């Protein structure tokens, strides 16, 4: 058992009274993220309120916290803006949540080399605003830039977002990471390796997409780019989602590289129009941005795109619509959530060539279950699209809510079978960890046991969930098929009894 008062005073000694909390209300806020999931599912996953939360300001404080946790044998869950939705930043075992949002300083900007060093808790919006004043910009940033932090984006892989088709994943932009390892050692990825795991220097790849299971990033040095003068956005309407994706694939084959590209379907547009009446009417909408050194060059790309799209019936909706859609880029996934008021979604990385097949399969499953999907897709780097089918439900209708979660999970499974990948695992996708993109799960497991033998750094995430994948898949399959009232009942039983323990690994 943890000696709470001893831990408390030791932590306060490190971060100061104002940066420590074990207030009940504070703790409740740290046991969730953006995901809407029934409270019972949280119980089944084993999600817990943290014992306490600390907000360090410096690398040394983080290292001291980590060493202390090691000494007391308590777990640590690092957390940024809390804007992810798979539970990666939510504690699964009693422990300390390390909230990094106070670490938001810009430490150094080298304008000639175009690199910037920041603390991990700065939000992307803050970084964008800072760079903007210097005529610079970041490469890829998440569409949740207002609240997502640099550290959080690195930890969740940073595979897609605004600018991803052009600048690639966050990995391409990382020059160096300073990381506090689970034993409290501070390393710089360009200078040090991880001897315990037999990994040589230049090891930032270990930490991108690692969801904080190998340590806490305390500084990030990133490449930044001059703000290009040429920036052109177009909104192109299609008859169908199929046509839109065919046109996008054609454009990619022609080596057109957009800065950002979104595809949304008719359902999405129809729902968005209920909230924002200026939303255009179409069978599908592609919003595409091109960036170049000159306006002329950017226009040239945009025109080429329009020409390719025209062959599949794509119509240019004009600059007003394009600019409106571009302005919505930070809100896009949430624009019509109010209609639910709960929004459920899955995220799948899919090769562009497979997108239509996957969507067709999803539509088939959804139709079978009488579910209305709102398709949203975002082009990532390397001919990958991030697909996010969304469903509106009302979580107060428990049975329907749980059932929809289950159906969406089955849809994810179907997408994975067709060649898709997940970018993050968190808690919710633990059963599908084998399908994670990037470093293989086998390698991740090897590194985990080497650097964190006590399993204290964000345990039960990514490499090993608490539930047996087989049991999870079975339960989801069952709930997707059975009547809603039974789902509601089954969940109540699972959440209230120790039965769930037998499903734990």
């Amino acid at each position: 058992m943890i000696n709470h008062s001893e831990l408390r005073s030791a932590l306060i000694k490190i971060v100061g009274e104002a940066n420590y909390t074990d207030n009940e209300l504070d703790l409740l806020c740290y046991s969730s993220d953006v995901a809407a999931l029934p409270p019972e599912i949280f119980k089944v996953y084993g999600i817990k309120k943290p014992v306490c939360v600390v907000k360090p300001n410096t690398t040394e404080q983080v290292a001291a916290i980590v060493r202390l946790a090691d000494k007391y044998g308590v777990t640590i869950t690092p957390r940024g803006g809390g804007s992810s939705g798979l539970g990666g930043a939510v504690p699964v075992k009693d422990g300390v949540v390390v909230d990094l949002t106070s670490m938001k300083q810009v430490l150094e900007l080298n304008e000639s080399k175009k690199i910037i060093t920041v603390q991990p808790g700065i939000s992307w919006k803050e970084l964008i605003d800072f760079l903007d004043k210097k005529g610079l910009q970041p490469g890829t940033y998440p569409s949740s830039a207002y609240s997502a932090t640099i550290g959080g984006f690195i930890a969740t892989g940073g595979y897609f977002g605004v600018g991803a088709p052009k600048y690639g994943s966050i990995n391409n932009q990382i020059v160096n990471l300073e990381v506090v390892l689970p034993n409290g050692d501070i390393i710089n990825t360009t200078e040090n390796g991880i001897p315990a795991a037999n990994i040589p220097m230049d090891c930032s790849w270990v930490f991108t997409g690692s969801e904080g299971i190998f340590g806490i990033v305390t500084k990030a040095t990133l490449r930044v780019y001059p703000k290009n003068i040429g920036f052109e956005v177009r909104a192109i309407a299609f008859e169908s989602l199929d046509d839109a994706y065919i046109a996008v694939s054609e454009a990619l084959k022609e080596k057109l590289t957009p800065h950002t590209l979104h595809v949304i379907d008719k359902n999405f547009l129809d729902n968005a129009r209920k909230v924002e009446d200026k939303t255009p009417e179409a069978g599908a909408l592609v919003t595409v941005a091109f960036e170049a050194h000159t306006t002329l060059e950017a226009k040239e790309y945009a025109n080429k795109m329009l020409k390719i799209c025209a062959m599949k019936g794509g119509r240019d909706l004009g600059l007003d619509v394009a600019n409106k859609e571009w302005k919505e880029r930070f809100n896009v996934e949430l624009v019509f959530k109010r209609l639910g008021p709960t929004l459920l979604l899955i995220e799948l990385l899919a090769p562009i060539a497979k997108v239509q097949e996957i969507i067709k399969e999803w539509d088939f499953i959804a139709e079978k279950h009488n579910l209305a999907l709102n398709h949203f897709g975002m082009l990532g780097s390397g001919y990958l699209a991030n697909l996010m089918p969304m469903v509106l439900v009302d979580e107060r209708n428990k049975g329907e809510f749980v059932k929809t979660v289950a159906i969406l999970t089955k849809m994810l499974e179907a997408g994975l079978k067709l060649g898709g990948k997940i970018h993050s695992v968190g808690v919710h996708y633990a059963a599908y960890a084998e399908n994670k993109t990037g470093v293989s799960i086998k390698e991740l497991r090897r590194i985990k046991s080497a650097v964190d033998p006590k399993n204290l750094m964000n345990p039960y995430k990514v490499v090993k969930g608490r539930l047996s994948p087989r049991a999870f898949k079975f339960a989801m399959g069952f709930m997707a098929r059975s009547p809603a009232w039974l789902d509601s009942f089954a969940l109540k039983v699972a959440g209230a009894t120790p039965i769930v323990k037998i499903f734990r690994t």
Partner: protein
Amino acid sequence: MARLQEKPYENELYVCARCGYCREVCPVKKLNGFDKVCPRGKILLLKHFMEKKMPITKDMIWNWYYCCTCGYCAETCPVNIDFPTVVKDVRVDLVKRGLNPLEPFKIASTNILTESNPFGKPKSERTEWIPQGVKFSKRSDTLYWAGCTSAYWTTETARAVVSILRHINFDYNMLGGDEGCCGMIPVWGGGTEVSRQIAERNVRLIEDSGAKVLFTTCPGCYSTFKEDYPKLVGKLGFEARHTSELFSELIKSGRLKFTHKLNSTVTYHDPCHIGRFHGIFEEPREIVSAIPGVKFIEMDYNRRAANCCGGPMRTAFAEDSLTVAQWRVDEALSTKAEILTTFCPQCTINLRQGAATREATIEVLDLPILMARALGIET
């Protein structure tokens, strides 16, 4: 579900996506450091308490009163939650359930009922600010409402307004000793019954005066009349307007002409309750720009993205209110402006204190006073 739906804010708790955009702009989040105080936290907790049918704790009540009500969060909210309204509705519901608001809110309400102002100042002193020799019509279409803050504290603002109006022979009326409190504090404190009682009294007096237009210098009064009164007592027989609207029209029509060059650099702070709440951004700027010799500089965060001065927090969290004011003063200082102006007595007081504690030389002036100077009027 019908039982829960009775609460007007209940659906909004489910609309919240917990994206956390609000926490990045929330002043009380910046003060407290932890999520629970920002809209995301407040909503998450209330939803949790309601779903678990847990009794509302003292901590929870405190949390729902710990808010600037500045509405900056609503600007960034991707699902369009009007958070200030949620705050108001939740507080009303808490009071309805017998959960008392914070003590200072209760004291203010009692003071309003006995002395017609939230400060507990004697009712008899309310008209002391009115300069000797000021004449106003006994009956006019236009009624000037000074508001408690200007009647008792920033009396120079109210004096400037009437002096300007006298300067151009503008016809208006005042309620004099009958003017009371608009009831903003009970309105925001959840005290619907007290608020209604106050609103009924004021509406009767104003309508009896024959006024068709009521103009206020206090954005708090303005917003209370404009937004809250119709909800409390139904449609009003008069239109509430802010003095900045009136002055900017008088300038445009050529009736009000500035004659004295001011030769200074000026920045403007947007009061939340006319700015974000009612979209009055340009009128005060038009007034400042019309003053000869003034070089106008915007702060980085302005209009819809203006940071709060912390004023509404003064009711129950004076120290925190001052800290928020200091942040805003720091923004003004970084523009290198010599004068920080605003159009709100409450903002003026708070920013002035913020500037004083920062030992800054920047002069904080309510806009009517700046206007009076540009008209060569002694205030």
